């Protein structure tokens, strides 16, 4: 028979105001097995915990039920307290009588009745709890960073700095990401390339860092401490070890009509190319879709001109297998496709551009050498209209429900830079709200308005129409003056909402990490564990977790790195003991459980058994790897015989709770 202690928390008045805590303690004291039942002001306080520990020792408790706030809040606190008093931490159950009782019910009688029932359910469950011991598994001292933008770069550098090996996998031929495409950065207006490229070079030079550029993660197996990752190194048809990045091939390549992605298609590149001057690794890559040699077998110019013989048309995709202790996801963002926004004429007019395109147009390394010219006629635009929130804070299916966060600031930056460089330009910004929380952000925005006379107009642009004279007719409403405005603009810049990179969703499936409906990775706790995913050993860096500007991204990148370092420092890690286990004597070996396991934690072994009839039989039975199992319980329902059960949430425990609640 269990000796159970029940501890009812007042939570100040949070619980005690609507739940008669004394009555709860009294009622639960009568439950079978309960030897002590008491209430206290704050169970989570030091003295509250002492009360629990003392009771465990004094009464020799073999189970503790705490009626308090949500287990998501203090389950760990109480488990630790129990453990320090010598009780197995998994012999603690929480009855949630705050969030799920006192805070939602007003009537004391019914709230108290419900609190008692919830307490009874916890008591019923704890009768069936078993002491659980967390196992240990080793940690591979190497991290993988997926994505080589500023987030991935910063994370990799920090991890390397701590002395651990780290690999970066970047799907593009160079690292650098979106930041490499930016011109200046807010609110300091320093040049993006000037602060990013040294970091890129540092990555290349750091011997702890290995960059897999033009590569993708194709398979992730294993678990925290020991992720087994397959990386596909796409054929670049250039031997990385030989190429010096001299660029001769790119000059001689006869195929020069390929839109240059780096410059958002405003100019062209050759079929063999180096994305940009500061690319890391500075190695050419042949674009197989446009290379004549690869398409038709006729050409071979690059191979002839290459002095080091780096061109290899026969190169194949290669697959690399590596084991990592930790994985940091830094897959970043992309602006949304504006194809559905007909009203802004994005598809119709080359002079309606996105902010990211504007970055390239204004960039000194951009198509026009940093002179802002209209894409259509290469003339200087005199009237520029910025449209905010294109697809952000949107309630229809074309856009995103969230705020993309960075648009207000980069638009202020763009407006300011244009007004600074071309004071003869009229700049209008249409906005819903201007959101400038952040250090020096509001000052920056005010400077744009006050010092640079940018016309900020609260209101939305209804329609942009290209006119015969090459102007863009912008119709908008000014919500403050309640006027309809009509502006003939030369250039319209759309602040497109940003969304997670398209590769994030399949990656999340591989990593078995959680995503929200917008495909942003979900952090383990929105406040307290913002850089960890809920899957142990997977950390989140940068905009893959939510829209972020550069300083925030870098901060999160370093935070993710420090979490990864914390993990890599350990020689082994304790596993979650609330995992599935199979009763081998009952297991049929039917494979149902294996098919529903998202982690591949279940394997089958052939094992000899002495059966109930005393014969010896070789049987196929399921075996759960407790280090891989995350404890979802899908297998327990797939198993018809009930051979598969889950520690901490066993069939009998849940049924005991059901019984207590329904009686």
């Amino acid at each position, binding site marked *: 028979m269990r000796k159970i202690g029940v501890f009812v928390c007042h939570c100040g008045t949070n619980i005690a105001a609507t739940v008669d805590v004394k009555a709860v303690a009294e009622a639960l004291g009568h439950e079978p097995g309960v030897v002590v039942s008491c209430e206290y002001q704050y169970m989570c306080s030091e003295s509250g915990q002492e009360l629990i520990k003392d009771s465990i020792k004094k009464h020799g408790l073999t189970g503790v039920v705490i009626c308090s706030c*949500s*287990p*998501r809040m203090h389950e760990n606190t109480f488990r630790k307290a129990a453990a320090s008093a010598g009780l197995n931490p998994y012999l603690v159950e929480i009855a*949630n009588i*705050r*969030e*799920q*009782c006192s*805070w*939602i*019910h*007003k*009537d004391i009688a*019914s*709230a108290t*009745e*419900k609190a008692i*029932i*919830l307490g009874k*359910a916890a008591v019923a469950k704890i009768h069936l709890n078993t002491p659980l011991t967390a196992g240990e598994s080793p940690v591979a001292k190497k991290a993988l960073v997926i994505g080589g933008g500023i987030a991935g770069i910063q994370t990799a550098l920090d991890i390397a700095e701590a002395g651990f090996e780290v690999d970066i996998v970047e799907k593009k031929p160079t690292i650098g990401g979106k930041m490499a495409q930016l011109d200046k950065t807010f609110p300091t207006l320093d040049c993006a390339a000037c602060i990013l490229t040294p970091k890129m070079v540092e990555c290349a030079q750091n011997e702890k860092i290995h960059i897999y550029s033009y590569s993708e993660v194709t398979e992730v197996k294993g678990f925290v401490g020991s992720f087994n990752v397959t990386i596909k190194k796409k054929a670049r048809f250039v031997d990385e070890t030989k190429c010096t990045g001299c660029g001769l091939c790119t000059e001689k390549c006869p195929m020069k009509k390929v839109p240059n992605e780096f410059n958002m298609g405003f100019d062209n590149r050759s079929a063999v190319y180096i994305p940009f001057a500061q690319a890391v690794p500075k190695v050419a890559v042949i674009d197989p879709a446009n290379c004549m040699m690869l398409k038709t077998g006729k050409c071979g110019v690059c191979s002839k001109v290459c002095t080091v013989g780096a061109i290899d048309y026969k190169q194949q995709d290669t697959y690399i297998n590596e084991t990592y202790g930790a994985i940091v996801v830094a897959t970043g963002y992309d602006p949304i496709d504006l194809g559905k926004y007909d009203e802004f004429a994005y598809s119709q007019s080359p002079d309606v551009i996105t902010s990211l395109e504007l970055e390239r147009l204004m960039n000194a390394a951009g198509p026009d050498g940093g002179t802002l010219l209209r894409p259509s006629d290469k003339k200087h635009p005199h009237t520029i209209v910025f449209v905010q929130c294109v697809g952000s804070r949107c309630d229809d299916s074309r856009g995103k429900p969230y705020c993309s966060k960075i648009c207000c600031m980069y638009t202020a930056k763009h407006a300011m830079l244009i007004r600074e460089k071309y004071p003869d330009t009229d700049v209008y910004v249409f906005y819903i709200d201007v959101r400038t929380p952040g250090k020096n952000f509001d000052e920056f925005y005010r400077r744009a308005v006050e010092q640079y006379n940018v016309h900020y107009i609260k209101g939305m642009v209804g329609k942009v129409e290209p006119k015969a004279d090459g102007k863009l007719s912008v119709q908008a409403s000014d919500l403050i003056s309640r006027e309809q405005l009509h502006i003939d603009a030369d250039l319209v810049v759309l602040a497109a909402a940003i969304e997670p990179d398209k590769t994030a969703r399949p990656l*999340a*499936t591989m990593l*078995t*990490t*959680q*995503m*929200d*409906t917008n495909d942003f990775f*979900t952090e383990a706790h*929105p406040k307290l564990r913002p850089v960890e995913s*809920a899957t142990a050993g997977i950390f989140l860096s940068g905009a893959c977790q939510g829209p972020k500007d550069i300083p925030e991204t870098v901060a999160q990148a370093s935070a993710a790195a420090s979490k990864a370092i914390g993990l890599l420092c350990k020689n082994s890690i304790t596993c979650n003991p*609330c995992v599935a286990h199979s009763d081998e004597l009952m297991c049929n070996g039917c494979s149902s459980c294996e098919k*529903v396991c*998202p982690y591949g934690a279940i394997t089958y072994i052939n094992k000899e058994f002495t059966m109930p009839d005393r014969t010896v039989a070789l049987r196929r039975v399921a075996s759960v790897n407790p280090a891989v199992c*995350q*404890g*979802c*319980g*899908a297998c*327990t*329902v*797939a198993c018809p015989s009930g051979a598969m059960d*889950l520690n901490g*949430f066993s*069939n009998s425990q*849940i*049924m005991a*709770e*059901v*019984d207590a*609640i*329904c*009686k």
Partner: protein
Amino acid sequence: MQVNQKEFEPVIAAFCCNWCSYAGADLSGTNRLSYPSNVKIIRVPCSCRVNPMFILRAFQRGADGVIICGCHPGDCHYTSGNYFTRRRMTLLFSMLDYLGIERDRTRVEWVSAAEGAKFAATMNDFTETVRKLGPNRRLEDLRCRKQ
């Protein structure tokens, strides 16, 4: 036994996954969004932990309605658990319906950790729906009837 409709207080068992719906329930508490005390929550790691046995068990023991709440499809903490839940519960509920058990006594609802308001609204609605149905008589165990 005649039960007066007015006096009837349904017993509602709500299975909530730890990561989304249980957190959503917590959030509705944090935001003081009330729902009837008839609803008692059972925490499970994932909605896919809910065995049809548990649902029948609840009805046996006196539940008048059973609701299963999990992460939105695609958002499962364990990536795929709720997809299995969806198939299992669809088929189970269809079977219960086939056996003539009132189909409004069972429900699956996806509630995220951020949807405290949805959680409360769902529970309010479900409780009222079950209240209208009256006591569960078709899938109860007479031995467990309250005396």
